[in-house]
């Protein structure tokens, strides 16, 4: 546990009070302060999740993996060396925003995009300059009642109350952006970080957003992040979330989408870093014809715990969802996949599918998978499945018999395992980045402890 240091906000997450929230909200418009205070009230009425009783937390011990005694961090240290983000490395003329240690340190929009009305700015600034949009949409997905459960969780209300740094993105109606907008969250100071993102896409707008997460080596931090993305009618939004934390970080993330009529949402999570990542990519399909594609690639190694909970709610007719998460594990690591698809009684013509595949490479790793379907409506097409396996001995032998050494054969098979997801994420730099993570992990795979499934071999012979 870290000793609380004095911060400008002067509170720990556990000790959050109305006064502390007022300090965070200093200078904000009244309506926003009021919302924060309402959230604070919810926060104070709630307790942190209890893994013994809370169904959604049963597989991941909250108290063990998340240290809520961290002091709230709201200011970047002046000497923070922030690594280059993927978006920055692409050298595109695009909008970028950077949050370092709970503070927005940079936001830039090239003139071409500004001329189209594209906004990428500090959420606090936006609360003044784009008050109507922010007022309408901020918190609209985290505090919507109707059984979402999102607002019942203290990990959400704490961010609603006390987010310190936020990104606001607005892509006006009918504006189609080709290059990704970059939002980069970096942690260089130990403590609790509460970043927030709100993106609003007008009708028929199109945008890609890369959400990147990095931290300095050896820094212990809890990052509690809430992202809301509103895709109005026929908008198309692609969010890539890169989790590239160093080992000290535990990440709680809600990435919630509202997809209106004919909107198309894709969320691609690449989870490679951090001690603990608990990611909830959620989407409310609010209008007929909306669609969501939650994709995930994850690779857990010694000491890591990834808990992935994609959740789709079909609230309108003829919407589609197709969840695909694939993960590899090695060392003493743990992954949890708890997917859920809810189909409202009025959501006739729903088409949904949900799949999770885990590949356990070495002994000692464990993957839990529970894909759920909650269906109130009969007139739908639904599928779901999960499988956990090891490298197939027949595949390995086939490659080895062609002269390919085991380590390289394994690489090819692991790449092959991820291939179907990788080929689908056809966005600049993303496949390369994912492959780089896979390569780095594979370089650390203990070949002597490789778990090989030779059951199929026996079937074949017997």
């Amino acid at each position: 546990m870290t000793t609380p240091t004095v911060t400008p906000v002067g509170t720990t997450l556990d000790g959050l009070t109305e006064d502390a929230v007022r300090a965070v909200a200093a200078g904000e418009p009244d309506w926003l302060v009021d919302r924060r205070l309402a959230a604070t009230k919810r926060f104070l009425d709630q307790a942190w999740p209890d893994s013994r009783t809370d169904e959604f937390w049963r597989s991941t011990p909250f108290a063990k993996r998340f240290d809520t005694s961290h002091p709230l961090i709201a200011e970047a240290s002046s000497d923070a060396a922030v690594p280059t983000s993927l978006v920055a490395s692409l050298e595109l003329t695009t909008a970028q925003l950077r949050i370092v240690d709970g503070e927005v340190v940079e936001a830039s929009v090239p003139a071409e995009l500004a001329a189209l009305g594209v906004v990428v700015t500090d959420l606090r600034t936006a609360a003044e300059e784009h008050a109507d949009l922010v007022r309408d949409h901020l918190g609209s997905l985290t505090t919507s009642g109707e059984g979402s459960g999102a607002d019942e969780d203290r990990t959400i209300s704490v961010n609603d109350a006390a987010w310190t740094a936020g990104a606001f993105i607005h892509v006006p109606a009918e504006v189609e952006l080709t290059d990704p907008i970059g939002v980069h969250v970096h942690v260089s100071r130990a403590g609790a970080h509460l970043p927030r993102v709100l993106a609003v896409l007008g009708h028929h707008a199109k945008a890609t957003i890369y959400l990147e997460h990095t931290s300095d080596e050896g820094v212990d931090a809890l990052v509690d992040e809430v992202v809301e993305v509103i895709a109005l009618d026929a908008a198309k939004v692609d969010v890539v979330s890169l989790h590239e934390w160093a080992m000290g970080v535990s990440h709680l993330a809600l990435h919630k989408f509202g997809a209106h009529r004919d909107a198309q949402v894709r969320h691609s999570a690449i989870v490679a870093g951090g001690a603990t990542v608990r990611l909830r990519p959620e989407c409310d399909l609010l209008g007929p014809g909306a669609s969501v594609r939650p994709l995930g690639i994850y690779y857990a190694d010694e000491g890591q715990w990834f808990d992935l909970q994609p959740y789709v709610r079909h609230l309108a007719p003829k919407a589609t969802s197709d969840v695909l998460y694939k993960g590899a594990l090695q060392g003493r690591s743990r992954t949890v996949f708890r997917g859920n698809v809810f189909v409202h009684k009025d959501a006739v013509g729903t088409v949904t599918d949900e799949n999770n595949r885990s590949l356990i490479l070495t002994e000692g790793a464990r993957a839990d998978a529970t894909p759920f379907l909650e269906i109130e409506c009969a007139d739908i097409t639904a599928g779901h499945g999960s499988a956990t396996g090891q490298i197939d001995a027949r595949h390995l032998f086939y490659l080895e018999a062609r002269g390919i050494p085991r380590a390289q054969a394994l690489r090819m098979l692991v790449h092959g395992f991820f291939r179907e997801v990788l080929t689908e994420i056809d966005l600049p730099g993303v496949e390369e980045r994912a492959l780089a993570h896979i390569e780095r992990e594979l370089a650390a795979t203990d070949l002597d402890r490789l778990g090989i499934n030779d059951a199929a071999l026996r079937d074949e012979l017997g």
Partner: protein
Amino acid sequence: MADLEIRDLTVEVDGSDILRGVDLDLDKGKTIALMGPNGSGKSTLAYAIAGHPAYDITGGTIRWQGTDLVELTPDERARLGVFLAMQYPVEVPGVSLTNFLRTAVNATSGQDVPIREFMQRLRDEMAALDVDESFLQRSVNEGFSGGEKKRFEILQMALLKPQLAVLDETDSGLDVDALKTVSEGVNRLSGPDLGTLIITHYTRILRYIAPDEVHVMFEGRIVASGGPELADELEARGYDHLKTSV
């Protein structure tokens, strides 16, 4: 001493004795055929040569140009020039055929063949074996028909240029034209540097690829050996008389 020298080889699978003392010699430049009823142990011998992990070698030796293969991993054997065209080639989803072939060629040749040169060779060999270019986009064996899989095994053989090729029922599942194409493919590769062991049930393939010797396996042993005429005799008479003579 023969290039391939198998002596008193015994192999177990899942605790049962499958090979019960096999002796076999094969020199480079020669082709021998191995026949025998279903379940007699032909594939077991092929897998034992290639180093399949499920086949436990409990006794005897497999020497290839003086090296005992038994102690080597499958990839080491392949890099010594040993190649097995499998009876049931396995589908490897997600692994691109092109990448697989290039990696295998680099691994066995010990050199990094430039991509353009490799692609040229690959295209030439595919054309020779009548394999459509669209296969370049596919995953290894995935969704291939039985005959396509067999053809792809020989394509690999052509690219890897082995010195010892074991063809385990490569002819099964091939139509008349494919059998001809594949046999011609094998013949093109034949020469003083290649020893070939053809496992088959039919004399059909042996009309294209003429064996120097024919051996018959029965219940895990070689029970008869002879010239090409032995194959015709087996085709005419079947294996029944072996049962009485053993």
